[in-house]
């Protein structure tokens, strides 16, 4: 369907463009805004794949939660100094090397054709509500990993509180 393709290319262009802008902006708040825009574009692609739950979770967690704290912290940090400083001033050759390697990888993947990844095509028809499916999978099939992950996060959280608080 044509509309789907248009939407996909729109979101993809937005994601890539914002990502590039995020890296190149000097101003940390501007970078953060472009990162938000990238994340939103990726959420848009999720929605276009009819993964509604993933779309919403991407927005709530990354954009509405984590990035808010990012922006919060960036604003507290002295920006005047950060803006004046050269970013990555001695790492440009590392970045160049990495870019070359990744670019090479992309070329290889492109050359070897669609068979490099065994992807299922997106289902053509509307999928059933997937919030329920995600829940079922998480709490039945992957119950143990899920709980381990949550305990890990809890430990990290308590650790952060202990470290941040000078005296209890």
């Amino acid at each position, binding site marked *: 369907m044509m509309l789907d393709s248009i939407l996909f290319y729109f979101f993809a262009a937005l994601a890539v463009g914002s990502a590039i802008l995020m890296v190149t902006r000097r101003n940390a708040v501007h970078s953060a805004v472009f990162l938000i825009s990238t994340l939103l574009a990726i959420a848009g692609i999720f929605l276009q794949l009819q993964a509604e739950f993933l779309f919403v979770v991407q927005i709530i967690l990354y954009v509405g939660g984590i990035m808010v704290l990012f922006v919060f912290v960036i604003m507290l940090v*002295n920006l*005047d100094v950060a803006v004046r400083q050269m970013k990555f001033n001695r790492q440009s050759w590392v970045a160049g090397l990495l870019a070359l390697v990744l670019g090479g990888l992309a070329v290889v993947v492109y050359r070897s054709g669609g068979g490099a990844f065994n992807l299922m095509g997106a289902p053509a028809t509307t999928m059933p509500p997937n919030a329920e499916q995600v829940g079922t999978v998480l709490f039945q099939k992957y119950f143990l990993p899920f709980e381990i992950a949550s305990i890990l996060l809890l430990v990290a959280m308590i650790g952060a509180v202990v470290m941040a608080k000078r005296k209890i």
Partner: protein
Amino acid sequence: MDQTRNNSTAEIETTVLGADEIILNMGPQHPSTHGVLRVKLKLDGERVAASECIIGYLHRGVEKIAEHRSYQQFAPYVDRMDYVAAVSNGLGYCEAVEKLLGAEAPPRARVVRTILTELQRIASHLVWLGTHALDIGALTPLFYCFREREEILKIFEKYCGARLTTHAFRIGGLQYETYDGFEEEVKRFCEDFSKRIEEYETLLTENRIWLGRTKGVGILNAADAIALGVSGPVLRASGVKWDIRKAAPYAAYDQYKFEIPVGKNGDTYDRYIVRMEEMRQSRLICLQAIENIPTGAIMARIGKVLKPPPGEVYHAIEAPKGELGYYIVSDGTTQPYRVRVRPPSFINLQAFDKMARGSLVADVVAIIGTIDIVLGEVDR
């Protein structure tokens, strides 16, 4: 909160992070400094480590003007000091000059003076309550308070033609006889007013947010209060039972029964409670006085040109905000040699630093409100 632009961003950030001591400037143009008070705060994180009040933005040289005016001519000027309690200012000045002259106002004048002054006390406390509540974020009490204040101002207007800077009294008594229906109007106001106070109290007194914002905020203990020369409701809220109306009665206060409300903890909430109770007591005084206004002259025979004998006098009254004293030196001419005013707001403001230390920045607004300052009086 922060007013000046010359504080760099770095400084404001530390306020939030609570790392260093920074200087914060409030005023002179700030919505909740009640005029042109400027407060410099030294902050340790969100807490006030020290503070300094910078005054003088409204200085008009009232005391100096007095030296170039005759005694009668100066009387309207005192209204412009505490402009929300002009009647009380006038009473203090007139009585001080009478004392200097060795004259005394006739009984009828003294009773009418008492009634009007007590009404003025209620009006002044109403302005305080409305603005104080507004500073803490309660919008509605302001309008209720101004509704009742309007009634009082109407009585003033009917009596002497002016509402705010009334110049209601003259040296030696009163210029005007009370108007027809004066007694009934004051009585009707007083009878309504007890219900009105209940209304304010339902909005604030037991409100959890109000309690949270005022209890334990800006504590001033009795010893500090006395040492700093604090007077009025601020002193009484700290637990000192001191009221010039009882200690050295003037006007007609010795004839009436009333209580002196006293606080316990000396915090903002106690000062609120004390002022609310004072309004009730003022109402009772008015009701007692209105029952029995003596007849007779309203003006003592003191002559048209006032030439007090050389000498000096200090006379203090209990103004709504505290002890309002006039120290007048006469050199025997028609103009005073020196007039010195002891303004209650100015001296109560000294306690600001004591109250504000260790409190949060947001409490500073509440503390400025609770002292009940009028900058016209502080700066004169």
